[in-house]
């Protein structure tokens, strides 16, 4: 009891004391020429990193904590004593409090909100279940083929629904399948692992598939910004190929003993007028997302259309509204706020300038950044990893490095983002992994064996993809 009590204080203790310690060290000792505001942002960054890694409080609470600390410590409406130097003059590089608060409603957040509305309406009107039943039918009863079907549908759904909700839904479909398999059939592991892996991989397919994608979009700005459709042009093929490799690996590691697995899914498309509104809105939104070059509305604007339609038609009720995953939205908002502070204070440029990059090959930089992303994502939340890593990666463009060979900073960001999403070798790597582990029948070593390999292949694949896109001049505006 005593030991666990000490441990329960250890995490928050470390996470608070180290940033405080950083604040106490004179700024010049840390990084030459660093301003007072940069110094505080550095402490905040370290605090965010420690809180997201050690998780003494929920990760979304950390995000809100960062936003509030930024408002108090480095904003132009912060605590009066923090705003002025000892000489009574206001610091020059304070952040705009409106901009910090604005991160709660940043276009990225609203894009995700639109995605949530689509997913919520689809689930409420059982579109997901009916679609799964229809799509699974042609895959028959041979376990290998059925596994491919389950993984394919999981990946498809997780492109639009959250990876966690998709995994929960598909695992609940899987339970009757597992019941007919022998307890010692290794194929059980293949089925149970296939779902979370496919959900993580599928999330890569669209900008709304998983929060790291949205955070990546945030840093791919200006002339090189990527539209919804453009993302899918490379995201979907990458996800599909990785999914196939994953499918082959799982069969190889955990071969099926049975030759036939009967699966009867009940699912009929609802034919009420509200259900039709859901189907039409879903298809229309997707269509608009893919045709922005034609109608001129970007992905963020389009994302608001289903929100208005579903609320007006009474498809999403007041009670449904309360069940929106605000935790995910605020987790991302905190990341955006952290990135904002790093950039606007000028700290990130200074930090990146200190890393001895000069003369390094761009490819090596890409590999290292992607590898760090993959490594971190295996041990902490993917979104947390993206929140911490992507602002720094985005600033590498200013580090006097020639990033041309990897398609500039855009290529770098994409490579790292994809590598973060394939971090899935442990139950703690992602919520889908945790759910599959809880479903039983698989051990951590099973997950690690397949997960590490898929992660490494995903990392190599992401780098090849970036090089391929570069050779097609995809990153040219």
């Amino acid at each position, binding site marked *: 009891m005593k030991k666990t009590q000490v441990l329960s204080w250890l995490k928050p203790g470390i996470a608070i004391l180290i940033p405080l310690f950083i604040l106490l060290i004179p700024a010049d000792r840390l990084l030459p020429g660093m301003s007072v505001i940069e110094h505080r942002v550095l402490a905040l960054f370290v605090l965010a990193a420690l809180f997201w890694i050690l998780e003494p409080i929920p990760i979304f609470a950390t995000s809100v904590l960062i936003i509030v600390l930024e408002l108090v410590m480095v904003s132009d409406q912060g605590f009066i004593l923090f705003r002025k130097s000892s000489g009574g003059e206001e610091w020059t590089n304070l952040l705009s409090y409106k901009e910090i608060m604005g991160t709660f409603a940043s276009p990225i957040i609203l894009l995700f909100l639109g995605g949530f509305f689509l997913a919520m309406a689809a689930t*409420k009107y059982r579109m997901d279940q009916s679609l799964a039943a229809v799509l699974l039918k042609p895959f028959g009863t041979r376990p290998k083929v059925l596994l491919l079907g389950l993984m394919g549908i999981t990946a498809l759904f997780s492109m639009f629904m959250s990876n966690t909700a998709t995994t*929960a839904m598909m695992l*609940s479909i899987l*339970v009757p399948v597992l019941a007919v398999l022998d307890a010692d059939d290794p194929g059980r592991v293949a089925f149970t692992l296939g779902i979370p892996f496919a959900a993580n991989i599928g999330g890569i397919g669209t900008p709304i598939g998983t929060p790291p994608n949205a955070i990546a979009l945030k840093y791919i700005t200006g002339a090189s910004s990527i539209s919804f459709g453009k993302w899918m042009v490379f995201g979907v093929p990458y996800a599909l190929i990785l999914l196939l490799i994953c499918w082959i690996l799982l069969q190889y590691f955990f071969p099926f003993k049975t030759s036939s697995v009967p699966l009867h899914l009940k699912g009929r498309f609802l034919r009420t007028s509200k259900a039709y509104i859901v189907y039409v809105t879903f298809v229309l939104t997707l269509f608009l997302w893919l045709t922005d070059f034609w109608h001129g509305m970007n992905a963020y604007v389009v994302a608001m259309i289903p929100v208005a339609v579903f609320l007006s038609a009474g498809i999403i009720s007041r009670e449904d509204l309360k069940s929106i995953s605000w935790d995910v939205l605020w987790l991302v908002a905190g990341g955006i706020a952290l990135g904002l502070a790093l950039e606007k204070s000028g700290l990130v440029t200074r930090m990146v300038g200190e890393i001895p990059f000069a003369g390094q090959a761009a490819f090596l930089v890409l590999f290292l950044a992607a590898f760090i992303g993959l490594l971190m994502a295996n041990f902490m939340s993917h979104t947390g990893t993206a929140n911490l890593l992507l602002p720094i990666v985005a600033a590498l463009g200013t580090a006097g490095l020639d990033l041309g060979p990897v398609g500039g900073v855009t290529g770098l960001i994409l490579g790292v983002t994809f590598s973060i999403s394939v971090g899935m070798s442990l139950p703690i790597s992602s919520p889908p992994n*945790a*759910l599959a582990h809880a*479903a039983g029948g698989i051990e951590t070593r099973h997950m690690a064996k397949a997960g590490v390999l898929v992660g490494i292949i995903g990392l190599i694949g992401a780098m090849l993809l970036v090089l391929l896109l570069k050779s097609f001049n995809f990153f040219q505006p």
Partner: protein
Amino acid sequence: MEKIYILCVEDQREVLNAILQDLAPLEPAFFLEGCESAPEAEELIEEIDARGDFIGMLVCDHVMPEKSGVDFLIEVNRDQRFKNTRKLLLTGLATHQDTINAINNADIDRYIEKPWNAELLVRLVKQLLTGYILDQGLPYEKYLPYLDTQILFERIRK
């Protein structure tokens, strides 16, 4: 961190011990308490509630001196503080009328007859606690190994 309690109420000490022993596999995640009478349970419930902890589950016998199990559960059911608390009646001696009363007025979630099957008891308690945790809005992640995954998956996919 808040604790979730499983409270077992049974007047015969050896039977109570048997119930507690059957539910022991859930101990790492949940806190097991046994009471030998309804008034004792009422007192304990107040104490747990006052500490800010949760009564996730009541496993209760019916025929007991002082106050019957069904009467006790009816009172708990009326209390808004325990509106999500799951109630399981574990008895061999309830009459037809008692049973009707338990369903209509105590709103019990499950009914198990004595002698009971330990595996069934644990399974039902897991199912009920999964619902409790989700209804109460508690973070389910740290209870994962002790929950009924089928119910969990069905609920969180929404």
